């Protein structure tokens, strides 16, 4: 049994609002950005769904908090925001992305330090660390008119 998602909400809605005469939106996206843009597309869809589900007003600004180690491409998020907000109350809204710098707590030496990577070691040499900040994917606030 095959459950096809191709006719499902994501592409259907986006194609409908994108008016790209039959071109599947994800294919179109792929031609513009690299293929990894697609999970940013799903995230942005989720942002638009959450906001339109909660707020019945025109949105002027959307503020997100994205950790630098969250595993998403901020430029791809921006690109997808433009696509996903078309013909919604968010159309034309500004997207403000606040980058959260990463910090790790080291279980060996007990200190908390900035880190630039999930795989870097602590200054004490240990890899036994917990990332305590920098993996956020948060919808912080919106400004409505």
């Amino acid at each position, binding site marked *: 049994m095959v*459950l096809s998602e191709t006719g499902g909400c994501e592409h259907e809605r986006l194609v409908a609002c994108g008016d790209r005469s039959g071109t599947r939106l*994800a294919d179109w996206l792929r031609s513009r950005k690299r293929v990894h843009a697609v*999970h940013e597309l799903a995230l942005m869809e989720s942002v638009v769904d959450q906001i339109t589900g909660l707020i019945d007003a025109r949105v002027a600004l959307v503020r997100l908090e994205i950790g630098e180690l969250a595993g998403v491409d901020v430029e791809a998020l921006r690109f997808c925001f433009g696509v996903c907000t078309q013909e919604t109350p968010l159309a034309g809204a500004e997207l403000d992305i606040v980058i959260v710098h990463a910090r790790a707590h080291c279980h060996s030496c007990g200190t908390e330090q900035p880190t630039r990577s999930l795989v870097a070691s602590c200054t004490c040499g240990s890899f036994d660390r917990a990332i305590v900040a920098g993996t956020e*994917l948060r919808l912080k606030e919106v*400004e409505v008119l």
Partner: protein
Amino acid sequence: MCRVCGCGDEPHHPHVHARTITLETDLLAKNDRLAHALRDRLTHDRVTALNLIGAPGAGKTTLLEKTIRQLADTPLAVIEGDQATDYDARRIAMTGCPVIQVNTGAGCHLDATMIERGLLRLAPAPRSIVFIENVGNLVCPALFDLGERAKVVVMSVTEGEDKPLKYPHVFRAAAALVLTKADLLPHLDVDPAVIVANARRVQPDLEVFPVCSTRGEGLGEWCGWIRAQMEAA
């Protein structure tokens, strides 16, 4: 000066002031809510769901075919995720295991909605195992909770020693790593100990199972871990 925005205009100036609404929700909130509900339901029924994630060609489907045969005494079901075709589902169906194929089209990962629909159709028996074979991709599936008991990375030894460092998110999210095609090691300039060390730099608690699915080597330990997951469920 306008008291609201401090813009310098008179109090009754014509422009509309924006009002800020604080939301403080997770971008993945919708998926995560459904995933939590699925996890509760699966735990209640003592169904153990394992989310297998790996690059295209890592050997996920072959590992599953052999695993299903090893676990012949256990009720099993499979959700197969691929962008297109039902080739993998047909391979699994050949083993006699109930299977459902989810085609994501251009989508790069499975999400909780797809699993919910798959589970509805499969209706897994209490005390069974559901294997979810995610879309071949090491990036996006790491972010999406499917309500599974554990994520398992499937990686072939031919993919190289540095893979866990290049794709740390998926290793960080995983409970176990199955190193497939281990029989090819004599032909490769790859040290499996380095792969494991790199993977544990990202996830110190990672369980590792080197296997050769085609010859059956290592499957016993891997299936032992699966049974332990079932017992703990």
